[in-house]
């Protein structure tokens, strides 16, 4: 983990002592161009050759995917994802995106390959099936060394608008 400035490290060490009394909501709007810059910065050694996000109005996100899968070779898919309910602690720790369309009947090799990549390269707490992608937010924060932040997150929600994804985060310390 990179060395953090001392004040940030102090907040992570003991949030209640340093930011106790905070109650703030951040709506972070991520434009499609920025989202695709983030995806383009992914590690080079993945078999995913193209990965583009296209958020739509009405809470629907399209993911354009091109992968080289065993047996079936190069395939392109447009997967539609619908963000699920907000994460809140401790009752609802999963950030879920339901797959509403995109995978075809014989896409099992693609799904297996993505599952293998997730298991091999990413921390525990990410589940991917033909029906959904879900992230266990406390497990991922803990794996990143930020477990002290988990109880502070009172709401974490993803929504989609035309050409942008909105991340709502409410922190109460």
């Amino acid at each position, binding site marked *: 983990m990179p060395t953090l400035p001392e004040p940030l490290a102090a907040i992570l060490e003991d949030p209640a002592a340093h*930011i106790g009394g905070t109650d703030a909501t951040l709506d972070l709007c991520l434009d499609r161009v920025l989202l695709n810059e983030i995806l383009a910065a992914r590690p080079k050694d993945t078999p995913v050759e193209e990965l583009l996000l296209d958020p739509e109005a009405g809470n629907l996100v399209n993911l354009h995917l091109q992968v080289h899968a065993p047996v079936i070779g190069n395939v392109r898919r447009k997967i539609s994802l619908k963000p699920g309910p907000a994460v809140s602690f401790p009752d609802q720790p999963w950030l879920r995106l339901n797959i509403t369309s995109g995978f075809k009947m014989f896409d099992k090799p693609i799904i297996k390959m993505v599952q293998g990549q997730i298991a091999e390269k990413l921390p525990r707490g990410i589940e991917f099936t033909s029906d959904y992608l879900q992230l266990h937010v406390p497990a991922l924060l803990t794996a990143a060394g930020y477990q002290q932040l988990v109880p502070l997150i009172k709401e974490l929600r993803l929504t989609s608008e035309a050409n942008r994804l909105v991340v709502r985060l409410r922190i109460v310390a």
Partner: protein
Amino acid sequence: MHPVQKHLFDTNFKDLAGSKIEGTIAISDELINMGIMDFLNGLKSGAENDAPSKPSPAPAAAPPALDTKAILALLEVETLKFRTSEGQAMLEVNASLVS
């Protein structure tokens, strides 16, 4: 510099337009003092690095500078109230980045 950070700097954060923050942010006195020391130490180490040294034959490309004026032009502040209470400072804020 990370490519995403570079993109944000190059575009003056315009791809975050519409973002907003609302609420109360509490900061302990200890954290404020830590921040001041961190800032001063940063200035000191910056001054040491600026000291004349052997000229480099091929200087590396400078990272893109942050255009604070352009970013502040995007910032719309509806509320910004500062108050202190025992052992901490409170900031009530309602601000957004406009396009």
